[in-house]
């Protein structure tokens, strides 16, 4: 991390987040902060509350209580489109890609570049050239290799698809990129590519939150790891080989 990044307010700060689903307390006073140029690993066993936390941050759910700040400014993340407008991009496990469309159409789905502006949005003419160019630029910058930029995403391998999804998030995230299990379905080589891609996002100064069960990947890319258990934040560690066991026991709760 650079000095400038250290001094600025965190890109995203969550304070005292609470969320109940009926009688189940999914989040109980959770705090979270992630800075620009930092990869934060969000760890925890199934049902620990990780997914609830990121879904609240990305506008799918709403916190019952607690506050969210972006770059020190309080915000209200009331819907997925508000989250997008705030510069928070989330990559879910199921990707939400459009297999029948090419990378550029996937990048711009729901936010197409089109004109003229006086027409209703749906009747505007697509500016296909600029969208394709911008997409190609992002893919090139992030070194995502695509054989032909006009091939539909459905014809790509799992790793390429994941890379497209990550690049799409990176292209539009002005603040935070959240990745849910980015390497879960990938082979060794394809995981490698996606991890490298995440590291490039960090270099570009994005604030990154990664949910992962793959300890090796966490050790490699995360600057900090926070561990959740039963809706609480139970610990924070700097991932290093020597405290790997400690992180694992925080996750499984062996010290109870």
């Amino acid at each position, binding site marked *: 991390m650079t000095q400038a990044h250290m001094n600025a307010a965190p890109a995203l700060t969550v304070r005292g987040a609470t969320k109940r689903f009926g009688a189940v307390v999914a989040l109980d006073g959770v705090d979270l902060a992630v800075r620009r140029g930092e990869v934060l690993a969000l760890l925890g066993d199934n049902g620990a509350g990780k997914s609830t936390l990121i879904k609240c941050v990305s506008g799918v759910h709403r916190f019952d209580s607690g506050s969210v700040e972006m770059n020190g400014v309080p915000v209200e993340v009331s819907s997925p489109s508000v989250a997008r407008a705030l510069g928070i991009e989330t990559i879910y496990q199921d990707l939400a*890609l459009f297999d*029948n469309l090419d990378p550029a159409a996937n990048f711009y*789905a*729901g936010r197409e570049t089109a004109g003229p502006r006086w027409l209703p949005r*749906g009747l505007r*003419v697509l500016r*296909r050239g600029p969208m394709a160019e911008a997409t190609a630029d992002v893919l090139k910058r992030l070194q995502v290799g695509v054989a032909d930029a006009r091939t539909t995403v459905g014809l790509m391998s799992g790793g*390429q698809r994941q890379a497209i999804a990550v690049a799409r998030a990176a292209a539009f995230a002005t603040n935070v990129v959240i990745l849910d299990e980015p390497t879960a379905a990938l082979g060794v080589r394809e995981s490698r590519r996606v991890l490298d891609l995440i590291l490039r996002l960090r270099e570009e100064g994005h604030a990154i939150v990664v949910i992962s069960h793959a300890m090796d990947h966490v050790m490699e890319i995360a600057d900090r790891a926070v561990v959740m258990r039963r809706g609480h934040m139970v610990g924070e560690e700097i991932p290093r080989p020597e405290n790997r066991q400690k992180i694992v026991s925080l996750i499984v709760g062996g010290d109870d």
Partner: protein
Amino acid sequence: MVRATAENAARVRTGGGYDPPSVGLAVIRIGPVLMLVVVVTIISFLSPVFLTTRNVGNVLGQTAAIAVLALAQLLVILTRGIDLSVGSTLALSAVVGAMVFESVQSGPVVILAMLATGTAVGAVNGALYVYGRLPHPFIVTLATLSAARGLALWLSGGQPHRGMPDVVQTLGGGLLGWLPYSTFLVAGLALLTLLLTTRLVWGRWIYAVGGNPEGARRAAVPVKGVLISVYVLSGLAAGVAGVITAGRLNAGSPTFGELAELDAIAAVVIGGASFLGGRGNVANALVGALMIGVIRNGMNLLNVDAFLQPIVIGVVILIAVELDVIRGRLEERFRVIQAVRS
């Protein structure tokens, strides 16, 4: 882009040449056109009359209504939907047109009444499906298939009403040289649909909704509006097909368009569109409609038993669907190759 799948896939070279799945995908992409060329070639060898201008005009005139219905059915199928009501809607709008003509002797008014009737049925379909939260458009449009036909029978007293304004007769049955006016109408509508699907944001949304409805919702695509719009357009197309049919036969009859919905669906499927949504294009849907028209006309010319026609069309549909299955397999192999190569 949407259209570019297989031929771009084929451009990915391996060593000395194209890899087999890519070539297969490219062939399947032009499959509908290939099939049409084969069928046309065979029939023109067997019948000297087939490729005469007079007969070609005939085929185009007979296919116009199906083609219009197929264009709109394509939009519906692209969103993973189906519209079974278009044949009945065609009849209803023809009957309404004929009855309006009995009291108002104005071509534009009659045409407007027919288009409005079709659009109204389409709007009912779309609104019931989306706001009634019905599980599948099959059910809604099956209901309107029945209701619209019933309404047409009830309004007309079960009888055809003779007489259509001159402009309607010209649109449906008139010739410009040896080409029917309806061919130009179809061409114009096809061009509009092509522009909608490939150039407008709305068209992109149609493909997005069909490719991944949940993803489209998360991406803030107005999914409900898109769904309603395709059923409204399908109803409007049924109105246009009603104008063509009524003009051709100079009447409005409650028995018009029976099973026309199945012809339209068959045309779209023969054109390689996928029932899983998000896949298909305007040109191939037209080719599918033409295929049906050509087979019917050709078998008539060759004096083949009329009962055999549905069998042949059934076989063609099966071939088209099988090609889609093979396409799926080839794409899987293509993905594997991509993964290995990357």
